[in-house]
């Protein structure tokens, strides 16, 4: 693969725990890039959350797509769904103080992704959503 930048592509249907097939792939790619175990685990956790969102909020039974791109010492991961989309700037930052006593305990996925990855970008329309996240060696 010298000279080229390896790409891994997954198209996954909505099946229980399907996100774990993405994290296994991420682990193998991270190992190949010689990322630390800490960074590899952070990538996997962020990827789990992105996949769950794609599976769940997309309200669509179509497959989701995941691309891994090794760009030198940076790993770029894109998770794309064909769901109804959302406005990321309108999502409230979760606080545990507000979660305790509230009926809505969930809402942590985006926050985790942002904390665990180096960069995160959202592209969303009524046709679907693509989350692009990167992590440097």
């Amino acid at each position, binding site marked *: 693969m010298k000279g080229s930048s390896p790409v891994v592509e997954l198209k996954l249907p909505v099946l229980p*725990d399907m996100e*774990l097939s993405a994290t296994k792939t991420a682990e193998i790619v991270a190992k190949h890039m010689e990322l630390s175990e800490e960074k590899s685990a952070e990538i996997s956790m962020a990827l789990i959350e992105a996949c769950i969102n794609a599976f769940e909020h997309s309200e669509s039974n179509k497959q989701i797509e995941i691309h891994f791109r090794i760009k030198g010492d940076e790993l770029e991961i894109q998770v794309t769904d064909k769901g109804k989309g959302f406005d990321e700037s309108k999502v409230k930052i979760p606080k545990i103080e507000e979660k305790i006593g509230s009926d809505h305990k969930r809402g942590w996925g985006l926050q985790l992704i942002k904390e665990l990855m180096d960069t995160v970008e959202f592209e969303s329309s009524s046709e679907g959503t693509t989350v692009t996240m990167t992590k440097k060696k």
Partner: protein
Amino acid sequence: MSEFKLDTREEGDVVIITTEGYLNNVGGEKIAEACYEKIDGGKNKFLLNLERSSVVNSIGVSILIEIIEKLQDSDGKLAYYNLAPIVEKTFKIMGLTKYSTVYSSEEEALAEMS
């Protein structure tokens, strides 16, 4: 990938729950169920051994927040040990570590909780 499993035992007044498998919604619900049964039986100190649950998701972890909330009624405690680094980091990001405690071993946990 095997099913989520848990094992419950008691050391003094502390209930120790040892889990195995992916801590997702299913895993979280199973932990909550085990806790609520013991809470109904009068227990209020819970210690989770998460050594074999090194993969979690935010839905599973948010169910632990429910347990924390429930335990406030009886002045109870939730604590953990044997956390994978990424699980501890997730607990920190989500703020669970403000309302529950991460110990480094069962001994340390039992000494402080009892």
